[in-house]
């Protein structure tokens, strides 16, 4: 059971992460705001609550691994790595600039703390299976977490990987679906409806739990549930809001990958700053 104080600490960190995400993206340049913001609470819980990870030694062989399979949301991971001190906070502003270590999509050979290369959707879960199988072969106890988008589940390879993990009883693997309901152009269900997604994962042999992906207590409980599985890999289906935290972006498919105006960016920063003050105040009260 996670204490209320711990939940409030994590909520404050999530609020800070959202602020870092929107700050690093800045105005005037197209960025994937929606998916990074929808994933922020999940990424916060992984790095600041769940994962065994030493920021001073991000390549420690026994670290838990996090793979951002929905690679366009990597700014959330960059923010986490910077908040942990793996990257300098001021480096976040170099996102996607020529010469930056922070590529538009995850590149393990550019950025310390990244575990693989993604960006073409649908490939990450297979890769995460490889990381989890390697732990078994090498007698290591680390765990692997893979974050997928719900639109990404349209890719057939995800279901190849979804068959592989239970086949090999990869109980050291947790798949998390950031189920914000939107893909780049439209609702996910407008092209290929995923539901009943819990039954689909269960039919493939996974232990499945649905949660509110913005409720920190539910997220932490689900992660603890996932790592208590002894027979099957765990899938956490996290219902989220695309663009969560910036009201005019929330649930707007048009904000999948856009440039904010100066005024919009300032409004977003103001809203996220107010939220951070709110949760910080709550903590000190």
């Amino acid at each position, binding site marked *: 059971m996670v204490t209320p104080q711990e939940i409030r600490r994590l909520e404050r960190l999530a609020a800070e992460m959202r602020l870092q995400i929107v700050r690093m993206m800045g105005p005037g340049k197209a960025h994937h705001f929606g998916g990074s913001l929808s994933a922020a609470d999940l990424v916060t819980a992984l790095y600041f609550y769940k994962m065994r990870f030493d920021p001073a030694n991000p390549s420690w062989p026994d670290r838990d691994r996090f793979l951002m399979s929905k690679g366009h949301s990597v700014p959330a991971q960059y923010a986490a790595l910077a908040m942990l001190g793996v990257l300098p906070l001021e480096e976040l502003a170099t996102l996607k600039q020529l010469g930056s270590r922070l590529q538009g999509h995850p590149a393990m050979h550019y950025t310390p703390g990244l575990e693989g290369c993604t*960006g073409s959707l649908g490939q990450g879960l297979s890769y995460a299976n490889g990381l989890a199988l390697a*732990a078994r072969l090498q007698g290591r106890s680390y765990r692997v977490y893979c974050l997928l988008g719900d639109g990404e589940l349209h890719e057939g390879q995800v279901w190849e990987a979804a068959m592989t993990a239970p086949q090999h009883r990869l109980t050291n693997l947790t798949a998390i679906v950031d189920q914000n309901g939107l893909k780049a152009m439209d609702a996910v269900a407008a092209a290929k409806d995923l539901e009943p997604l819990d039954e689909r994962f269960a039919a493939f042999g996974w232990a499945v739990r649905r949660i509110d992906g913005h409720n920190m207590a539910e997220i932490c409980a689900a992660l603890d549930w996932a790592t208590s599985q002894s027979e099957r890999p765990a899938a956490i289906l996290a219902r989220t809001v695309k663009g969560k935290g910036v009201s005019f972006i929330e649930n707007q498919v048009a904000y999948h990958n856009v440039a904010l105006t100066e005024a919009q960016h300032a409004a977003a920063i103001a809203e996220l700053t107010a939220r951070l003050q709110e949760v910080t105040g709550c903590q000190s009260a």
Partner: protein
Amino acid sequence: MPERVETRVAYGEALLALGRARQDVVVLDADLYRSTRTVLFAEAFPERFLDLGIAEQDMVSTAAGLAASGLIPYCNSFAMFITARCYDQTRIQIAYPGLPVKLVGSSAGLTQGPDGASHQSLEDISLMRGLPNMAVVVPADDVETHQATFAIAGWPGPVYLRLGRYPTPRLFDESYRFEVGRMVRMRDGGDLVLFACGHMVAKALEAAELLARDGLQARVVNVSTIKPLDAEPVRREAAGVQRAFTVEEHSIIGGLGSAVCEVLAEEARVPVTRLGVRDQFGESGLADELLAKHGLQPEGIRSSVLRALG
């Protein structure tokens, strides 16, 4: 008559020996292990063998994760599928970060034979050569295949190893030492040079004997590493001849012929004729029939040389 062995068969035995020598080698297959001959490794080292089923994309992405963890994965399927079916996965997850995954394409080229165009890889070298960081190795016989199977384990990046199911004569003795990136002159001659790879090295050597009767001395070079391909040895082997020829069981677009032309166009003034499949798909037939149809039997190579030299 020298012994004839399929390079895929030599690979299966080499992989078994490699498994004994190196604990970090893991082998993945996509439901073709008796054909790719990884079955020998699978029986000896079941804990280091994974059959991912008929799922090549899942296989190579899983291999990338294993390689990122310090293992040396050998991924196996038919050449067409291990290159084309999972090209995007190989590009982003393996070639881009330079992970040491070894992609092994079996039953490559026209000599795959009766299964027809779907299974005859004539573009695989082109696909793999275009990827940054990817090395491309096409051994000519069983001895070189054995050597290459071991050598690529120590190569720091990804490798595409192209193998065939066509019995081919032994060209090297056991003292031969393959090195990634080193071409080997197999026959001396001052009138023309035949650059060949894979099964076509033996065919080129036979063609050279026919040409000798025509009064032409052909130099024959085994380009078993198509990438990386240093300019200097290509230029040196093409020096002093009337014309260079490339011979490959592959499209003349993007493979050995293209690689040699790129060097010679930039670095030398030697005309080049590319022998191979002329921008077509394959079709069902026997291996020898198909090679003959595309001018890749010794007599066909001889005819093309005589035509080009006028």
